[in-house]
């Protein structure tokens, strides 16, 4: 295809992505380096028969003029990045100096909102992703050995947790684990503890969210692995069988290696998706015990006075996180594309 034809074919989609993805990206970088202007204050002296008082009021005209001159706001450089709500250099430095041991230091970081969110986001991403792969693989193996008619039926129901809106899915589970809901009261009975509540402690909330994450994403891994299982070469399995491999050995040495490219694919998609974990925290009303990077951005924007600079700063830090996460993939594609220097 000629360059010119390519250009016209590609222009509409490029324009959409440029205007609504690339430009907003530069705009959040700029926002994160600016804060709104301070209001211009003027002191007015007003005198009456009882004496003179000086009063401070906002000079609206002057404030407006400054805003028009510099609509981006006041340049503050990296000040927002280092403040308490983000990277908190000062606070971290103090904690480091006053630490008794390393574990103590790490756990005291939890009081700082950004590190708290980071802690949960990373834990969630790196616990849910392997569990999803493992669980999806086991479901795929089990369903694959069923009778033909049962398979379609299983695929239909397996798709549901993944297809359903994350917020809606988490609300459904939230109602079920409510102390009055079927799972919540069932668990209370099981452990004979009428005060047991999955929402009360940080640890249980984290486990709930992780269980939700696995429930939501396992179908994806299942479908991909299930499709992969249909292409496992029969001859290799037979050869392994003749060589005396047990069923378990056949799975470990023939099926698993055959599926390993798919594992990489599922892992990549899952890392991207789990890193943005957000809706379950809203659905489970879990923000008192667990926050994620996406959630603190949302929280900043949702305030009465929208804290755009703060949200933009967290956004930039999140994007840096995403890029670090993608680095291995990007480097690999780069190597494949530029072989041998």
């Amino acid at each position: 295809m000629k360059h010119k034809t390519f250009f016209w074919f590609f222009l509409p989609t490029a324009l959409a992505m440029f205007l609504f993805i690339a430009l907003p990206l530069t705009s959040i970088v700029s926002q994160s380096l600016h804060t709104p202007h301070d209001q211009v204050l003027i002191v007015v002296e007003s005198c009456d028969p009882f004496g003179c008082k000086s009063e401070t009021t906002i000079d609206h005209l002057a404030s407006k003029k400054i805003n028009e001159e510099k609509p981006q706001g006041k340049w503050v450089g990296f000040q927002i990045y280092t403040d308490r709500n983000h990277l908190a250099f000062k606070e971290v430095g103090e904690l480091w100096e006053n630490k008794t041991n390393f574990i103590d230091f790490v756990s005291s970081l939890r009081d700082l909102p950004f590190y708290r969110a980071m802690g949960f986001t990373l834990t969630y991403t790196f616990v849910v992703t392997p569990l999803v792969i493992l669980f999806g693989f086991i479901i795929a193996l089990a369903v694959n050995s069923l009778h033909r008619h049962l398979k379609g039926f299983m695929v239909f129901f397996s798709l549901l947790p993944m297809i359903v809106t994350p917020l809606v899915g988490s609300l459904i589970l939230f109602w079920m684990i409510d102390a009055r809901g079927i799972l919540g009261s069932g668990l209370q009975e099981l452990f004979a503890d009428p005060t047991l509540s999955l929402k009360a402690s940080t640890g249980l909330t984290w486990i709930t969210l992780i269980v939700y994450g696995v429930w939501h994403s396992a179908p994806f891994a299942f479908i991909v692995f299930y499709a992969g299982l249909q292409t496992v070469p029969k001859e290799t399995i037979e050869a392994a069988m003749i060589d005396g491999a047990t069923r378990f050995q056949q799975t470990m040495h023939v099926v698993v290696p055959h599926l390993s490219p798919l594992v990489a694919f599922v892992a990549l998609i899952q890392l991207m998706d789990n890193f943005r974990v957000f809706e379950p925290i809203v659905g489970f009303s879990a923000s008192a015990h667990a926050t994620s990077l996406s959630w603190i951005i949302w929280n900043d924007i949702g305030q009465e006075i929208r804290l755009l600079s703060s949200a933009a700063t967290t956004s930039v830090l999140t994007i840096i996180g995403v890029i670090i996460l993608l680095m291995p993939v990007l480097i690999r594609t780069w190597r494949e594309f530029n072989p041998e220097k």
Partner: protein
Amino acid sequence: MTSNQIKKPLGLQILIYGFVLFWLILAAFPFLWTMWGSFKVELDFFSKGDWTNVFSGVRTQVVYGESFTGAGYEGAWIQEEFWRAFLNTAIVCVSTVVISLTLATLGGYALSRSGFRYSFWLLIIALVFRALPPITLVSGYLQPFYDWNVWGTLPTTIIVLVAINQPFTLWMLHSFFQTIPKELDESAKVDGCTQFQAFRHVIIPVMWPGVITAGLFSFLLAYNDFAVTAILLSQENQTMVPKIASFMGTTQTEGNIMFAVAAVVSAIIPLFILVMFFQRQLVSGLTAGAVKG
């Protein structure tokens, strides 16, 4: 299974069926339970004393004289005007799907037919865009949207959703078009067609399976979105998902949580129907990226 497979030992059979049953319950039970419970009153749906109440509907009978009631639906759809959210969702989803498919079909086709280096880099950029959490972009939209006075309206949200969907749809259609042999449109060009005519007369007739699959996923992305729609839409333009989220705040205090339950079930039904009719396309779409690596 093929006949040459050795019959599985009984223990393994039981283990497999047990596990499949376990997963089936895990995957389906929450939905069925909530659907059933949405026709009850709150005290039956959340029955701490005796969980079988939800089946017999004891309290529902006390209040309404029947063991089923549509009161939750009535409250949500009429009193809280959920129908408005439903219409908004329909408008947003249909427009998003149509526009994003139009853009991505052209773009994906061009990418699959161009062997130049930049097409590879465009795909990598799209991959990075796909990885960005949509909410990170939202604070970048707000200021300009306020300035231009377009915040809160449906068209703004549709355009933003289209743009956010583009990277994913583009990837999907690109890998689909690669499965259509190049010779097909090249022979049309030899016969004197321009590239666009070749696309129009040769590719468009055969591209529908791929386009339908991509459309399904683009629909799901728009339908399920919470971060963008919740922030970019004003109160009266809200779609279903942000509306449900705002129910959470109001209904819990007013004691009509069943409105929220009914709304949640209403939002699930279209997805159920979607999976029922398009199961094959969904499965093929999920695996499309994987098989080609």
